[in-house]
């Protein structure tokens, strides 16, 4: 199981702070979140993903492998000022 934490507009929009999922890649996390919240996968590509506090940009993007106990953060940056 991996822990998925939602932050910012991701949390406001989907009304969840944290969910537990079975997923072996970040791509699978996106697919499972899309199914859980009834939204298309592309809606989840507007967010920034961090695995164990590291941007997936520095890892293998959506192909980043996940193991039991990993924490995936789904971050939507605030745009207001």
């Amino acid at each position, binding site marked *: 199981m991996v822990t998925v934490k939602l932050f*910012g*507009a991701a949390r406001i929009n989907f009304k969840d702070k944290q969910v537990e999922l079975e997923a072996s890649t970040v791509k699978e996390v996106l697919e499972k979140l899309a199914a859980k919240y009834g939204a298309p996968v592309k809606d989840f590509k507007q967010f920034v993903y961090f695995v164990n506090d590291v941007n997936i940009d*520095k890892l293998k993007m959506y192909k980043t492998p996940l193991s039991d106990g990993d924490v995936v953060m789904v971050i939507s*940056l*605030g*745009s*207001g*000022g």
Partner: protein
Amino acid sequence: MIDKTVLVIGCGGLGGFVGEELTRIGVKNLVLVDGDVFVESNMNRQLESAFDTLGQFKAEVMRSRLMQKGRVNVTAKTVFFTEENENIVASVDLVMDCVDNVKTRLFIEKVCEKHKKILVHGGVEGSYGQACVCFPGEKTLTKLYAGAEEQKHATNVYTVATVASMQVALADKVLSGKTEEVKNGLFLLDYDSFEIKKVTL
């Protein structure tokens, strides 16, 4: 005194507190840019909005207030930051991103990249916000906001004030040459869970 010139783009929520705190830490020169005026809906979160400043230019109000609060030289430009005035960036030491939309943020980053200036970013949404330092060549905001949809959730004053303080703390590090301490970090504020968290960009 910190003998530097800092450009604050946006003098609303974040910019109001950022200008206040840059003055209080002793920055010698500030340039404020904002073409907007105060309206009553700003009063829930914008420091210099008050009944006696409604209808006045935000940058000009901030300039006159800050001059009473510290030995700071303040220049106010009552225009929005565009291609027509982007050269303001060339003569400053540091730029503060305090605007309220993604499009302008990405334009500011582009101009800072062009002039090889460090940019301190801050953004807020509801009870959440973030701050980070963007170094030339890294295109940090362009990557972070790629594909992002503009959100418009009401933001309260304590979120704005805290993110502005995070920006000024980051700026203080940069101005004192301690850039390594803030490089590659994205600092997240979450008042829903009362957390401040650092993640690696």
